């Protein structure tokens, strides 16, 4: 089948081709719309990532505190709650159900609700990784910090967390890429992001292949960009001479 990329230059209303492919004033081409949808994807993903990182790090750290069974339990409950319900259902709950139960959410921007949904869902996974990262450090590191006379917050701040975060950069990278992909679920609650665009524009223009190719390419580009950014961070944070003890190394 032949591809017709001209579809992106069409006006979204009267389906007339627009010169230069970008609309002006009140006219909008499918290309304009695509880029705008990409913007929505990026906004949702990045905002959710911030929420997820902040909450996830906090919860993950709390779960490793020594001698605080109640805090640990609360942290565990948080993780179990948010990771055992499908993201899609969580987003529906945030969007359709919570506003009825808790009236303040009724007037909250829908983007905020989606970001909360995606962010907290991901926070559970990040909390898992932060906990695993801290626990993967040799027990001696904690002891060494304590033995130097650091208080608990101090040895977390100066000894455990700096290494734990370095160790979990690879899984955090995939989590950051996941958040981009998972943001596609936001379309179910009418965020006009890339997947929404793919569905709506595919329907309006009947050029599904071209539209899907473009949208898929943008997802791949986004994932790759995140991957590169994290690689730079990983490189910056690398500790000279440190080799993670992965029990033997690969082939």
């Amino acid at each position: 089948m032949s591809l017709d990329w001209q579809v992106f230059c069409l006006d979204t209303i009267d389906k007339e081709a627009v010169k230069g492919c970008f609309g002006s004033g009140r006219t909008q081409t499918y290309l304009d719309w695509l880029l705008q949808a990409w913007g929505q994807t990026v906004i949702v993903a990045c905002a959710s990532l911030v929420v997820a990182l902040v909450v996830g790090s906090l919860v993950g750290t709390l779960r490793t505190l020594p001698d605080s069974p109640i805090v640990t339990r609360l942290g565990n409950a948080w993780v179990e709650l948010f990771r055992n319900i499908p993201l899609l259902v969580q987003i529906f709950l945030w969007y359709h159900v919570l506003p009825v139960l808790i009236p303040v959410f009724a007037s909250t921007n829908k983007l905020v609700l989606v970001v909360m949904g995606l962010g907290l869902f991901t926070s559970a996974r990040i909390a898992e990784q932060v906990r695993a990262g801290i626990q993967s450090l040799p027990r001696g590191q904690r002891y060494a910090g304590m033995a130097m006379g650091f208080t608990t917050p101090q040895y977390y701040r100066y000894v455990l967390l700096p290494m734990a975060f370095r160790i979990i950069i690879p899984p955090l990278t995939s989590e950051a890429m996941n958040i981009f992909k998972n943001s596609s679920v936001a379309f179910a609650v009418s965020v006009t992001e890339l997947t929404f665009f793919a569905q709506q524009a595919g329907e309006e223009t009947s050029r599904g292949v071209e539209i899907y190719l473009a949208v898929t390419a943008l997802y791949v580009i986004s994932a790759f960009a995140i991957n590169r950014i994290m690689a730079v961070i990983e490189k910056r944070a690398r500790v000279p001479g440190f080799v993670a003890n992965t029990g033997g190394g690969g082939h």
Partner: protein
Amino acid sequence: MLEFNVFTWDVLRSFVLHGFYFSVTLTIVSTLGGIVFGTVLALMRLSGNKLLDVPATIYVNGMRSIPLLMVLLWFFLLVPILIGRPIGAEVSAVITFVAFEAAYFSEIMRAGIQSIARGQVFAGMALGMTYGQNMHLVILPQAFRNMLPILLTQTIILFQDTSLVYIITANDMLHGFTTAGANLSHPREAYILAAVVYFVICYSLSWLVKRLQARIAIIR
């Protein structure tokens, strides 16, 4: 404000049961298929042979950078046009999930194989085992065992992800709940019920995985 009494046992059975079966079937089939193809992909990537490694790497990384929703749309809407033959929503969902999950399972298996200490590889070789024997008798059994909890955790994620097949109107469990909710005019209650059911299932499964992990830890 919320009323659940319209969701009688009968309503749930007629709307949700079929979807539940489908979600479970989809999960099981794509876990098994995903592990088999994933292991093949992992071995290809570790083979050191560029002809095997490069295509496998492209496939795995490609799949992993596209949202599942998009992959579902691709397979569902375009594959039939390309192959000139229709495939139904549910068949399409199964194919998509196997293809998609293989990429994820392959990464798990690759990590599992690489987590086996180099010394184990040497030990097998030193006993005179061939590459195939070493893989089959020494490396893969350990890799599977090490990765079992992670494989099962991925299966739980997979079960949750089956909810996304709504985009191609395959009739999964969540779909059952939302249709019941829509047609009985209690959509919010339906979402809450769905959340509870998913939570109970997934939480129980992850609890089982934890028990299993503890069991395995003792044997080792």
